[in-house]
């Protein structure tokens, strides 16, 4: 299964990934139109500067996801076949239990629309938009390493 990894040495904190992510999750998939949409798309990846280095943070699609266990509306589920944690917007009530339990702080509340913001690995595209957009190749889209024993 593929996951997103970040080469901290290469990340310069330009936030191009944030922009590409927001555009990729907009209705139009077009920067000039995205900002005028009714539901303005927000980045699902965030880049944080800590002690002079920059670190992107995204959902890990954990094998034993705490958010799925905590989701009281059954909106979050894990698809065993694809290894993806999926979110059903129609079932979500915006209770923020998933925000409360994510140990990576990778789920943020979008208070405007009462839905969580969380990386979906651009599931409808052949590769995540951030990977393509990163000018320094700091974002890797690779097979997961064998689990450490």
């Amino acid at each position, binding site marked *: 299964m593929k*996951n997103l*990894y*970040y*080469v*901290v040495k290469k990340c310069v904190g330009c936030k191009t990934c944030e922009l590409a992510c927001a555009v990729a999750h907009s209705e139009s998939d077009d920067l000039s139109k995205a900002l005028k949409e009714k539901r303005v798309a927000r980045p699902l990846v*965030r880049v*944080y*500067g*800590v002690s002079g*280095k920059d*670190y992107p*943070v*995204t959902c*890990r699609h*954990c*094998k*034993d996801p*705490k958010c799925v*266990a*905590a989701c*009281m*509306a*059954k909106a979050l589920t894990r698809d065993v076949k694809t290894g993806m944690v999926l979110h059903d917007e*129609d*079932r979500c*009530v*915006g*209770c*923020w*239990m998933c*925000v*409360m*339990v*994510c*140990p*990576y*702080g*990778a*789920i*943020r*509340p979008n*208070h405007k629309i009462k839905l969580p913001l969380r990386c979906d690995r651009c599931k409808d595209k052949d590769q995540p938009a951030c990977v393509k957009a990163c000018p320094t190749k700091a974002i*890797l889209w690779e097979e997961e*390493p064998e*689990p450490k024993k």
Partner: protein
Amino acid sequence: MKHVVIIGNSAAGIAAAESIRQIDKTSKITILSDEGYEAYCRCLLSYYLAGEVDEEKIPYRPKSFYKENNFDLLLNKKVVSVEPEKNRIVLEDKSSVGYDSLLIATGASPKFPKGVKGLQQKGVFGLRTLKDAKDIVALLSSSGSVCVLGAGLVGLRVAHALSKRKLKVTVVVKSKQVLSQMLDARAASLVQKKLESNGIEFIMGADAVEVLGGAQVKGIKLDSGKEVPCSLVIVGKGVSANMDLVKDSKVKCADGILTDKFLQSSIPGIYAAGDVCENFDLTIGKTAVNALWPIAIEQGKIAGSRIAGASEAYDGSMGMNSIEFFGLPVISLGVYDIKGASVSLEELETFDENKGMYKKLILKDGKMIGAIMVGDIRASGLLLSLIRNKVDVAPFKDKLLLEDFSYPHIAGKTNEKEQMYV
């Protein structure tokens, strides 16, 4: 063939059944419930009451679930006693069911205070089951006002829901603050103000002594003598564990059924999980019942895998909850108030009254044991991880309340399994 009996068809019971089946495909698994529905999302009942969630969104598993997993589901069956010496449970209709392993996942029920007269009337409800919710909804068209007794999580959720249904809502609170089981006075007052500014009324420091009326509720009488008219009364005075079924057995109980690190009770072969279970609390350092959905799931999983022969141990639970009223998000984790604490605890906080923003962290010996977040909850998952992993936060204490406190600040310190950086 081994027969596992699970009493309770909800968060804990289902999590256990699923985790048994992951390991053991053949044992017979029987799930009993005294309700008439397949498992549903109990925490959505207040959203259902508000008219925000339809009944079709309530089910917790697809229709095919029980059959596909080969679970025998027995609905509308109330278990009245457990007989460990005979390895069997006895149902209300006097029939009995034998077991090799038993999981008690019977949850909890609303407490109806003894001192209040007239609680048996039609029009007085707790909110625990889908049936409760449906019965309340059926009365909504003929109800203009409601009194909610108690300002705990469920009481306030009901108040919020019924105000969305345009009822006039009055909440009667015995203590000085709302949500006294999860917030300190300052956070509680932010929540209360939010609810008040949206039309919900509070009567603080008062208790109901009587529900007035007869065939129909007409109001409540308070201990001050004052009467508040209403046509519906909801009792939100907390819950107590459903453990009547073991009261004549040797299963040891306190506020819940006492369990060990494998969720086994004092009697081998009998397990408990969820709202009925008392286990070690990580933040207060002694046993407690933490009657919460995610905890019912994690305890159910561990109990189930143990019943199926695995040896994963449970390190304990802790209080944690997330609520949001009229756009104000609030999260409480672990210890939330240091009033009356016998050991010395440290508090870190930021407060901006105008923005309605308040964060407080509680530390003991350099480690976090609790937090409250009002207005900005983004970092709550990181704080929870620091608490659960007992991380020494002293070296980066000054960062914890920063607005952009984020995973890179704690990466490598919390034993999380998934890798992010190379």
